[in-house]
């Protein structure tokens, strides 16, 4: 136990207070609710022992970098510049809390204002907050935000339309978040190419919001979405979930009428880290500013009229508005957003373009190579894909994945675990680090699987 500077000085401090025992300080706890027996936990450990155990336990995991891996589902097996971790963990950033005292928090405030600007530039919408928990909570809170803004004028009250291709984990988060507001969810259908069914989308006109993803969960870039705002009309929010890196190459939703853009920030700033901490991007246009969730930094001046930064629009937030707050979010993912800002600024406008191209290139190369294997077919042969694509393989896809795993390749995600109807499908994810050698290894194990099944 080495984290207590006053260990061994208890009596000295107690005697100054005129007390004899630390137990005196707990005398307000009634006997009836006192814990009578010691906590049945192991002995304290030293830093050295903890490091040893951590190395052993975490070292027994199989990490994505140890073999060819095609498991993505929206998370990126990225390369994070070395500067990011080193600078973000400077103690002044790492060990600070929400910058309530702006005068001693200008560093984090400015970094977040710059983050807001970079996200705003990326998606082409004027406003960004300083992060949500992840893409799913961003999407869920975008939906409840849009309902608050549009419900009054909506002809389909308390109603939102959501793409049926939103992956189940995200749909579950959305359902949990919207059920309390009494919001009805209708699903938007897709055609055999994985594109949004336009007739189905027109039904959403007059609802509070439409939520679609670009690319969708199969990695499909859908040109039709760019006309969606015209179909649903001015008073229905178009909410678009994006792969943030794709926007280095493809048109930002702000250019085609999106009102709110959400997405996973993780590819910028932090490794996949078992799914968290990551951060959700949340950007919107002016209409939503007073109903949006989360913290936001504004430029201001100090009492000498010198430029300064501060948290603003706090009256939306729980610590002031309580049960009428726009969200319950308090702790967010600021530190990870800071890492994102560092990564984005190192990339710059040219680097983000190259990064997006690397992913587009590896996706296309893998897609071509895999689809040329006998017995394997693309689920959507006519689509354009970014990062991910789905294939149908012979036999059960869970067995296929596990067979290929035994051959040393993490071949993707078996889609049967999401939808029973897709039990022979695999979602293959590529990224900037996917090499031609990785793709050859993938092709080899898929070929081995097809032989294994036919035998």
């Amino acid at each position, binding site marked *: 136990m080495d984290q207590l500077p006053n260990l061994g000085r208890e009596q000295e401090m107690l005697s100054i207070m005129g007390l004899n025992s630390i137990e005196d300080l707990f005398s307000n706890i009634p006997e009836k609710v006192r814990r009578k027996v010691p906590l049945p936990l192991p002995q304290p450990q030293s830093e050295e022992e903890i490091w040893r155990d951590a190395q052993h336990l*975490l070292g027994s995991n199989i990490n994505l970098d140890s073999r060819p891996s095609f498991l993505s589902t929206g998370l990126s097996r990225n390369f994070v510049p070395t500067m990011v971790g080193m600078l973000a963990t400077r103690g002044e950033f790492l060990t600070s809390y929400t910058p309530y005292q702006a005068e001693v928090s*200008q560093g984090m405030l400015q970094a977040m204002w710059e983050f807001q600007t970079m996200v705003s530039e990326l998606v082409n919408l004027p406003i960004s907050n300083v992060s949500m928990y992840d893409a799913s909570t961003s999407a869920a809170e975008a939906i409840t935000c849009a309902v608050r803004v549009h419900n009054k004028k909506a002809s389909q009250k308390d109603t939102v339309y959501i793409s049926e291709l939103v992956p189940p984990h995200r749909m579950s988060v959305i359902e949990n978040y919207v059920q309390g507001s009494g919001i009805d969810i209708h699903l938007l259908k897709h055609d055999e190419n994985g594109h949004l069914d336009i007739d189905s989308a027109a039904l959403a006109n007059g609802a509070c919001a439409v939520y679609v993803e670009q690319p969708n969960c199969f990695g499909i870039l859908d040109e039709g979405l760019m006309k969606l705002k015209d179909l649903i009309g001015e008073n229905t929010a178009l909410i678009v979930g994006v792969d943030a890196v794709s926007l280095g190459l493809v048109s930002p939703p702000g250019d085609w009428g999106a009102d709110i853009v959400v997405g996973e920030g993780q590819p910028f700033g932090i490794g996949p880290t078992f799914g968290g901490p990551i951060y959700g991007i949340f950007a919107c246009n002016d209409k939503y500013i007073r109903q949006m969730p989360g913290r936001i930094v504004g430029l201001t001046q100090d009492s000498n009229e010198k430029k300064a930064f501060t948290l603003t629009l706090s009256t939306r937030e729980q610590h002031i508005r309580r049960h009428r707050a726009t969200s319950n979010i308090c702790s967010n993912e600021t530190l990870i957003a800071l890492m994102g800002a560092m990564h984005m600024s190192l990339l710059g406008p040219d680097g983000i373009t190259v990064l997006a191209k*690397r992913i587009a290139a590896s996706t296309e190369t893998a897609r071509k190579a895999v689809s040329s294997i006998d017995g394997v077919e693309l689920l959507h042969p006519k689509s354009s894909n970014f990062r991910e694509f789905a294939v149908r393989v012979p036999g059960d896809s869970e067995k296929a994945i596990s067979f290929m795993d035994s051959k040393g390749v993490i071949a993707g995600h078996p889609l049967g675990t999401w939808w029973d109807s897709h039990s022979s499908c695999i979602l293959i994810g590529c990224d900037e680090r996917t090499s031609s050698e990785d793709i050859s290894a993938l092709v080899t194990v898929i070929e081995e699987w097809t032989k294994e099944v036919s035998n």
Partner: protein
Amino acid sequence: MSDIFSFNGSQNAGWSQPEPILSDSEILDTIPKSMLRNNPPNWPRASEPELVRHYTWLSRRNFGIDTGFYPLGSCTMKHNPRVNEKIVNLPGIDRMHPLQPEHHIQGLLSIFYEMQEMLAICSGMDQVTLQPVAGAQGEFTAMRCIQEYHREMGESHRDKVIVPDSAHGTNPASASMCGYDIIEIPSAEDGRIDLDALRSVVGDDTAAMMITNPSTLGVFEPDIAKASEIVHSAGGQMYYDGANFNAIIGKTDPGLMGFDAVHYNLHKTFSQPHGGGGPGSGPIGVKEHLSKYLPSPLASRREITDEDPEGVGDGYWYSWTSPEKSIGKVQQWHGNAGAVVRCWAFYRRYGRELEKMSEHAVLNANYLRYKIMNPSQEVLSKIHAMPSDGAPTDFVMHEFTLSMIEMKDKVGVTGKDLAKRLLDYGVMAPTLYFPMIVPECLMIEPTETESKEVLDKFADDFLHILTEDPELIKGAPYTTDVSRVDEVWAARNLILRHPGNSSEDN
């Protein structure tokens, strides 16, 4: 003042990366023309040396626990051990995907399992989920479980959640997001729960009561078991806001107090760095009757068999399980795993001695309160007005509240002025104006990781400020990077991003 957008170097001067594995024209062929982006985002063009200096400069304009004393009440700003940061950089956590098969993740699952068990033990609960990523999300998750429980019992008419007026704002906000109506009950004059007020609002529409104990005034609620009884006998559930868990570990627990559900703020009690406002981690624990509604999945284990592959060497095989009537997901994966691993490393430091941690947190709070409230006669004679205790009590737990109302009435110095003046003394200001029931409130939580010398100095500085020229205090701070910041100007002008550079060279 420089900002990052003033870096506008040449196209080739920035950070380099490998080339794509296809040619430009092949790449552009994969995407319909109409979908291509016209101009790249207007991000800075900077090199690593420039950015390292920019962010180092920003970091020096920021105050953290590492910079100095950070007595921010309710936030438990304790030291963050550095080995924890080293551990989460191991590829066995940093380079892991949440959907990898179980035999890839035995080490992580064992840590998840150990944390679930440890938190259940410390709180007197039966089952814990680590999925919620912040205290507020933990509250929301637990209230969703309670909601499903009532629905299954055929009691979906229970639509009211009771919170004391001293509660954290997240409590009513989280319950409201679940669709509940909020009933706020006043606290008794001493800041404790008013049992008569509670009795008068419970009924067959009561879904739950949400409360933190020790309360936000830092006072242990002696009638807590009675409050639980009142709510339970009306058919409601008791929810424990674990924000103040640092005060009680090993001394009592929410289970003993009669609670059905609890959230933990791992970033407070177990030292996940707060990082400018997050990440956090907000696991919840519940009693048996609520456990089947918990988010999915949970870590579980069984004894290893001959057919199993090699595990972590402790004789168990770990796996994911899904509670029978799970509410599904609140975060899309398994929560903030990185925070869970850091907090595991932190807890291992104490093990069965966690009680010592709470003892020292409470010792430090009482010591600091004593030092502030008992100045020498010499100092006292120069003070404009002493603060008054936010709650009349002999002993507080891990934090305490002071009211500066007398100071405000006598010389016009507000709690905020005092907080700003403290910044000039090289410490972070306490939490300000919370709980709202204490006028001109300062809420102070030293945590167990501060030495006696730090506490002595803070008390001396605090008392010294009370003797300073009121006009001086009202103009503070003076030594910080910027002087007092105009929040109204910010809200009026809403400049929420950089306006952009006028000439573009794309």
